[in-house]
């Protein structure tokens, strides 16, 4: 708890000025009523005199409850170290303030110490209450959890007396939960089924060598002896060959739409599409690389593309992180400028033929849709994660843009791409789980 600061506001100045003005006007125009009315502001001067600075005593306690689908329980032992949680989940924070003094606090203002990195998604960490002795008030709000360890700060408390002329401010220590630890949960997610000719871990829709039963077909000369279904031969005297689901390696390219149109958010207080796309791409990249799949990053800029070739090494990770960070800066100019000035044409020319594509774009114009159509026409497996920057606004133009965006996403689905419309309310972890889950069950 810090030292208390007591501020006494000179609240009577304006009333004295009003008195002088009214009296002066009354004397000037010869109006007794106005001169008599000049006594009215003096009562406010008199009331300001009654202001007193009695020290208030409050007790603040915080309880954090994590709402995470992957967590077995949202509750943890109170105050015993950071609360574990998954990034993208939400946590409900209940901060209780109790008046431990003997007098009534007519105007108690409390601001909880929310970590800067955690956005408040509902409720408010601020409150103004009137508390009788031993009465309590609760601030309840929800924060969206981000990766890392986040410590809650002390609460800032300010009390004002009845006249509003004396304010006492201090930071009060908070009992109970004081930190949240968020670790990513997407490292173990499997990739999709776009594969190359090399053996790997991704199940495919073709028979071959593997572990999972796929089909039984007629024996063909040259089939391995160990693949013959000897049980059937014993029963029917016909040779048949057992096939297992082939497992192949896959390479993945995460394409992030970083054109100027992506530097747009639903409102000024929300993060723009590029930030959400880059965040999602970064986490998908980490998960896929950790699973051993060579993964690359491609950034689409206004007149060219920047790319990190698929790989799994530390250098690839560093380059991918640097690129994702750089493309979030407005005005970032891609080092490579395509000859035609068309980034999509340049991308299609340079994209390897055996990769899966994850496209991260807000779909606020037709270009991403045309890219999806072109990729699907060339046989690429495409998954789209589209942050919605047109939701929750009453503006007619934005609502029209939302309709157009919905039409584009529907058309993208018609091409066979798997599309995830990512609204702000949905956590990133859930989004990635959904995307990869859909891919795995294809």
């Amino acid at each position: 708890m810090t030292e208390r600061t007591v501020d006494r506001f000179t609240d009577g100045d304006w009333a004295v000025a009003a008195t002088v003005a009214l009296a002066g006007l009354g004397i000037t125009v010869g109006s007794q009523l106005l001169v008599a009315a000049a006594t009215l502001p003096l009562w406010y001067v008199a009331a300001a005199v009654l202001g007193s600075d009695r020290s208030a005593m409050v007790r603040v306690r915080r309880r954090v409850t994590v709402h995470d689908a992957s967590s077995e329980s949202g509750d943890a032992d109170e105050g015993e170290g950071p609360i574990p949680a998954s990034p993208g989940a939400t946590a409900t924070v209940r901060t209780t303030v109790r008046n431990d003094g003997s007098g009534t606090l007519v105007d108690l203002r409390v601001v909880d110490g929310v970590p800067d990195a955690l956005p408040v998604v509902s409720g408010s960490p601020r409150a103004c209450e009137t508390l009788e002795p031993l009465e309590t008030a609760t601030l309840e709000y929800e924060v969206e959890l981000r990766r890392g360890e986040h410590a809650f700060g002390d609460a800032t408390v300010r009390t004002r007396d009845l006249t509003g002329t004396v304010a006492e401010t201090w930071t009060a220590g908070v009992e109970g939960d004081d930190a949240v630890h968020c670790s990513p949960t997407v490292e173990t997610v499997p990739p999709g089924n776009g594969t190359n000719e090399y053996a790997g871990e991704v199940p495919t829709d073709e028979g071959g060598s593997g572990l999972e039963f796929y089909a039984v077909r007629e024996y063909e000369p040259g089939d391995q002896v160990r693949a013959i279904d000897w049980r059937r031969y014993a029963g029917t005297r016909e040779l048949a060959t057992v096939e297992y689901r082939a497992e192949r390696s896959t390479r993945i390219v995460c394409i992030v739409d970083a054109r100027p149109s992506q530097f747009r958010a639903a409102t000024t207080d929300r993060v723009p599409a590029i930030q959400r796309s880059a965040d999602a791409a970064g986490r998908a990249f980490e998960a896929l690389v950790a699973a051993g799949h060579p993964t690359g990053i491609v950034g689409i800029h206004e007149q060219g593309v920047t790319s990190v070739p698929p790989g799994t090494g530390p250098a690839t990770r560093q380059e991918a992180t640097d690129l994702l960070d750089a493309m979030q800066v407005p005005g970032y100019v891609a080092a490579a400028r395509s000859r035609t000035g068309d980034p999509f044409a340049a991308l299609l020319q340079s994209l390897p033929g055996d990769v899966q594509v994850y496209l991260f774009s807000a779909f606020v114009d037709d270009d991403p849709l045309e890219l999806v159509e072109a990729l699907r026409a060339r046989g690429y497996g495409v998954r789209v994660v589209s942050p919605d920057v047109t939701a929750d606004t009453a503006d007619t133009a934005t609502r029209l843009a939302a309709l157009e965006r919905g039409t584009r996403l529907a058309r993208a689905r018609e091409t066979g791409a798997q599309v995830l419309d990512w609204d702000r309310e949905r956590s990133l972890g859930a989004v990635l789980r959904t995307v990869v889950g859909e891919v795995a069950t294809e």
Partner: protein
Amino acid sequence: MSPPDDRLPTTVTRGLVLAALVGTLALAVSQPIVAAGVPIGLGLAVAVGAAGGSNRRVALGAALLPVVVLAGVATIGLAGTPIAGLVAVVGAALAAAVCGVVCGQPTAVALMRTGGAALCASVLAGGSALVAIGIDTVGGIQAALTTALWLTGDGVSGLLVALIVAPVAVVAALLVVPPAAVTVPSRYDSYVTSRNALAKLIGIAAAVAIGGLSILTVGSMLVPTLEPVVEAVTGSAAVRGLLAAVTGTALLGVAVAVIARSVWSQTGGRRNAAVAIVAGTLPGVGLPFAAAIGSGGIGTTTVATLFGAAAAALGVGWLAAWLYEGVVGRNEATNPETAVAAALAVGGVVSGASVDTATLSLELMRAGVATFIPIAAALFAYDVGRYGRTLAREIGAEASRRPQLVRLGWSGGVAAVGVPVGALGMAGATAFAPTLSVPATAGVIVAVAAVVGGTWVLVR
């Protein structure tokens, strides 16, 4: 502790509205015309608020603005005395400020559009005033209509001129109207084909009419029996009226289309509301003018004066909106709660200053109510408004009700204590001396101030 929040907490807002209501009612005891100013202020607030919305709302706001200003000018004109007119203005300002408290400050965009609508309406109102003067000069509506019908001249030559002017105006309107106003880019080619075909058809029809009239005229020189037919056609008011109506409508269309073309070519955004403003102000000024002229109950001189004054007021409004837009853009605008307090205080001061002598009478009581209560309400509004602004800045507009009610009760109590004390002191002094001198009253003020100062020194 500083999350910015432009809105005041709800309970404080309701307290301010209540203070404004009480102050207005008190003013109405002495100056009932303040009630007439309230709907004008509400109308102005609605017009400004609508200007910040969609194009349809902008058009409605632009239509409402001149109607409200005309009503305001008429109200002030009919008030009789300058004091009454000033009180009506106070009522309008108070209502507009209360709307600002409830709905928030008008945005810079809304003010810019309101200024545009005021300028457009000012020009139209000025033109209407000139038309009214012209009607008065010609000798009435009938004479003015007759002059308009036969503007191109009498006889065959006049009809020929009218037959040339009308199709030219219609074709000009067809060509000047921006294609984007009536079609979409994918149908541009078919639109151009249809437009050109229609223009050609109008040209052929006009040529046929002119040719037919020429043949008929030449024929009438050779065949005397055709003369009555020619005279009937050339002297027909219906034919001239139709041509005049077509020409007038087409010229109006040309004017609107030219404005639309000029503003659309000057904007880089998609939310230019100039067309909506023009589309709104045209009926907003035109319909009241037509009603005033057509009713016959109002003299053309009065109509000219009314619309001339409205044009001046709208011009001042444009200037004020333009200046205020800059102030809002710099975040230096006066808070609406301060405007409420100022309007109430001005109302109280005007009411108090309007009483010449203070003798104990019913008139003095009414004047006292209309002076003390609005000023007390103004003090309450200022004090509570400052509290609400601080609360919104530190906590937000969703602050709980209880502490706000406590503060409203405290501030209301302080304001309420002063009114009966001041009124009783005034009545007592008046009873002892039939005419309380201003110096004596000032002495009372000094005495009270000395008591308050002494108390302050003792407490400190």
